[in-house]
């Protein structure tokens, strides 16, 4: 009996996936949704978060926000509660960060905008230093500010 249940689940999933693929190939609107979902999934897998996912983490206080921009820019404005860990002075700032943040902490790194590479650099450096739960908020501070979400500085 348990064997029957185990073998039934993949079959049901396969059927469901086939139906979705068939539907998305028939309806153009569904195929657009499918494409958008794939992009979102790819982004999620690469460790990048969109605005709504970032805001959800912010609201639930379940992540540590890290500002990868220069310290003097962080000093003027940043996401409320974010910590400065700049790409340019990572080596100087990291020991303090390591002392205060446990290795399993969920970290969301951001910089100014999607084209600035500082957030991805800092995320890589953090992962190199043992932090496994690191995500990048690719929209950056510009998208956050445009949405009118909390900032300080």
């Amino acid at each position: 009996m348990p064997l029957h249940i185990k073998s039934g689940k993949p079959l049901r999933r396969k059927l469901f996936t086939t139906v979705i693929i068939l539907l998305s190939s028939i309806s153009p609107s569904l195929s657009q949704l499918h494409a958008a979902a794939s992009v979102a999934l790819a982004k999620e897998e690469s460790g990048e978060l969109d605005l709504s996912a970032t805001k959800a983490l912010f609201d639930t206080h379940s992540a540590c926000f890290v500002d990868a921009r220069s310290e003097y820019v962080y000093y003027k404005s940043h996401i409320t509660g974010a910590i400065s860990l700049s790409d340019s002075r990572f080596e100087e700032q990291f020991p303090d960060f390591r002392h205060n943040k446990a290795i399993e902490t969920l970290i969301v790194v951001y910089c100014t905008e999607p084209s600035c590479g500082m957030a991805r650099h800092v995320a890589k450096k953090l992962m190199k230093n043992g932090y496994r739960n690191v995500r990048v908020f690719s929209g950056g501070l510009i998208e956050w500010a445009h949405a009118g979400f909390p900032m300080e500085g």
Partner: protein
Amino acid sequence: MTKIGFPSALITALRLMLGVLFIMSGYEKLMDLKFFALIIAEYQILPTFLISAIALLFSLCELLCGTMLLIDLFSRFSSSVMLCMMVIFIAAMINNVMRGLDHDCGCFKFLSQWYGLKEEIGIVPVVRDILFFILLLPIASFGSNRVPWKKDQK
């Protein structure tokens, strides 16, 4: 041997102009010393423990030398101090431009706010500081080193 002179009116004009400029710059930095210290940190030249002290020293130097230039108190000395500071700023900026770093220069924020001048390190701030260096030279060479309230001095 005749001493080559320099129009005293021009020296006075330069003194007043640069004096006001350095007073404003020093005051601006002192008002937000932490911001200035963070910009100095971004140059990645000084060790961390020196940064706050250097930020305070540079801001005070600018404010004091600017005031001394304005009231013509030891103008030659104060302009020489500012010349040294200009050399340091120019060298630091050229060094960072060559290293490919990109950040604010921490020079004259109010000038960038008023006239839209570029504040990021690069050719424009370097040329601007070279210009200030050239303008300081006549004061350091031909200016007076007197105390204005002592009338019997040369």
